[in-house]
């Protein structure tokens, strides 16, 4: 993805509130809020003061604003010979604030899935209608390893506006990069005017990237791991690993790049109905179970292998993009400590 940085400058913490005030008052702002002690979610925010800036990352990735958990894709009324289709509800423009670089990279990872020869209208509409304000990290979390995939923890080209926190975190303000016309529009309408940075913005960003990268504790080198798909497909490793997998699917529901979906019809008592696209998980037995009873991935071993190789190999083979962004959510949430970074190391070990 090629993005031109149109302008750049520094804004203060107070400017940040002004930047978001307009969309917040219009009910169009989605931003991170600590809804429970250990849970940060992107939710609708009317008062910018409710936003938390003290979070490593959201519990659920902001992906759901582009690819919702359940989305109505069409409706119908009538049945039999009298049946007509109804368009899904119109979408409204949104501002999505506080998206981390790993989750921004996930947009690039998902673009070729929802694009390609059959561009997905729902994804495209949401992409067009959503202004994304990226927010660089100030501290890596215990499970973070985005830098292993070549991601800068403080900047990403996918955001319409990218904010890079400057030291010290509270007083230093943010380096703001305008990366699209939508970003420019948001900034212009807010009346916030970035001040010239004392140092060249690119230099500042590089410096912050280097400082933060040095603080990551999970150091893995995934180079060459994609070859495991060919070389270790039938290795007993998968069966061993799957022995502890519960098949709960939490890794897929929290993954910023998982895109598998189911299509489900719901009929109301009056016979009208709707078709919904819903998140699904390749770890579920029925995901690939055919009506005939045949299942190409009959046990957890095949299903876990599919998920991990999708992230580490298949996506790269298909689209030339890494399928994992190192956000660490699956590692943090797995009840039996299946750790994709460890899997990378294991697979590389088995191949040497």
């Amino acid at each position, binding site marked *: 993805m090629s993005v031109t940085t149109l302008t750049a400058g520094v804004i203060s913490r107070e400017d940040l509130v002004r930047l978001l005030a307009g969309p917040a008052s219009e009910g169009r702002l989605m931003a991170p809020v600590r809804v429970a002690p250990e849970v940060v979610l992107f939710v609708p925010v009317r008062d910018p003061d409710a936003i938390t800036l003290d979070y490593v990352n959201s519990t659920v990735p902001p992906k759901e604003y582009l690819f919702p958990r359940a989305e109505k894709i069409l409706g119908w009324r009538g049945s039999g010979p009298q049946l007509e289709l109804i368009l899904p509800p119109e979408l409204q423009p949104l501002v999505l604030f506080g998206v981390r670089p790993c989750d921004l990279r996930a947009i690039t990872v998902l673009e070729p899935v929802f694009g390609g*020869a059959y561009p997905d209208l729902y994804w495209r509409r949401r992409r067009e209608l959503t202004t994304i304000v990226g927010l660089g990290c100030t501290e890596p979390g215990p499970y973070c390893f985005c830098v292993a995939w070549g991601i800068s923890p403080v900047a990403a080209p996918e955001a319409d506006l990218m904010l890079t926190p400057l030291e010290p975190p509270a007083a230093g303000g943010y380096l703001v990069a305008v990366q699209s016309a939508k970003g420019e529009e948001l900034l212009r309408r807010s009346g916030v005017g970035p001040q010239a940075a004392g140092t060249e913005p690119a230099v500042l960003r590089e410096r912050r990237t280097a400082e933060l990268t040095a603080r990551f504790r999970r150091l893995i080198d995934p180079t060459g791991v994609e070859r495991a798909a060919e070389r270790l497909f039938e290795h007993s490793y998968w069966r061993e690993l799957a022995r502890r997998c519960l098949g709960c699917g939490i890794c897929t529901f929290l993954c910023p790049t998982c*895109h598998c979906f189911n299509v489900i019809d719901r009929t109301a008592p009056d016979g009208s109905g709707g078709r919904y696209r819903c998140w699904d998980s390749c770890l579920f037995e029925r995901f690939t179970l055919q009506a005939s009873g045949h299942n190409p991935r009959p046990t957890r071993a095949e299903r876990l292998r599919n998920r991990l190789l999708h992230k580490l190999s298949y996506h790269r083979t298909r689209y030339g993009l890494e399928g994992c962004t190192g956000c660490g959510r699956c590692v943090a949430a797995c009840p039996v400590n299946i750790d994709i970074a460890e899997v990378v190391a294991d697979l590389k070990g088995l191949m040497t």
Partner: protein
Amino acid sequence: MRDNPLWPHLATIVKIVDETPDVKTFRVVLDDPGARENFRHRPGQVALLSVFGQGEATISISSSPTRRDYLEFSVRRVGRLTGVLHQFEEGYKIGLRGPYGNGFPLEELRGRDLLFVGGGIGLAPLRSLINYMLDRRDDFGSVEIVYGARSVADLCFKEELFTVWPKAPGVRVYTTIDRPEYGWDGHVGFVPSYLAELAPSGAGKYALICGPPIMIRLVLQELAGLGFPPERIVTTLELKMKCGIGKCGRCNIGSTMVCTEGPVFNLARLQALPPEY
């Protein structure tokens, strides 16, 4: 919604044929003349068929694209969606998206002798190609059709199988049922063993196979013995799909998506895939 690949076109069922106790062929016509004009399929391609209230299922198109006035889908009653579809009557509406997938390699097959091997409902995707080939008879060489089902009642497309196809020039049809049955004087036995008895030569010929997994596996062994190279053995896979357009993540075999890169594979390509189908 015209640029929405998940949006189904409404179609009306104009004719229903009871093929077997659990297979019906639904002849449908797309309601919108523009959609009708744009729906141009190749034999072996599939469509996503909507039964509103039940969802969508991937069904191979069993009619030939040479017969432009309608589309046909031969559907076995196996689950919830197909159970409801089987209760539908002529005049009912369904939804259609597609056509999807690669279809049979028509360019490669042109001028060749063809051997079709089918079992049960597996004849449905082959039927599209058989009728295509009969409508373009001069473009293809000799044709042998080996087809079997559990019983006489379970044989699909009986009219074509017993009347239309055997009369076509250069076409020979060999039909078998699994167990002896009163009134049946044809062959009895499974498809792979019948194929071994018939022993068609693989020289220069293409084999096109579709049927239950166990039949396919045994037929592949027979064909190798008859001298068919992997490049000239062609089959069509059936995997669960929700979108048909490479997004829902269900029909992948390794990094290959069956919906967009298949469902038709030759044995050489199939052998290069991880064994997960």
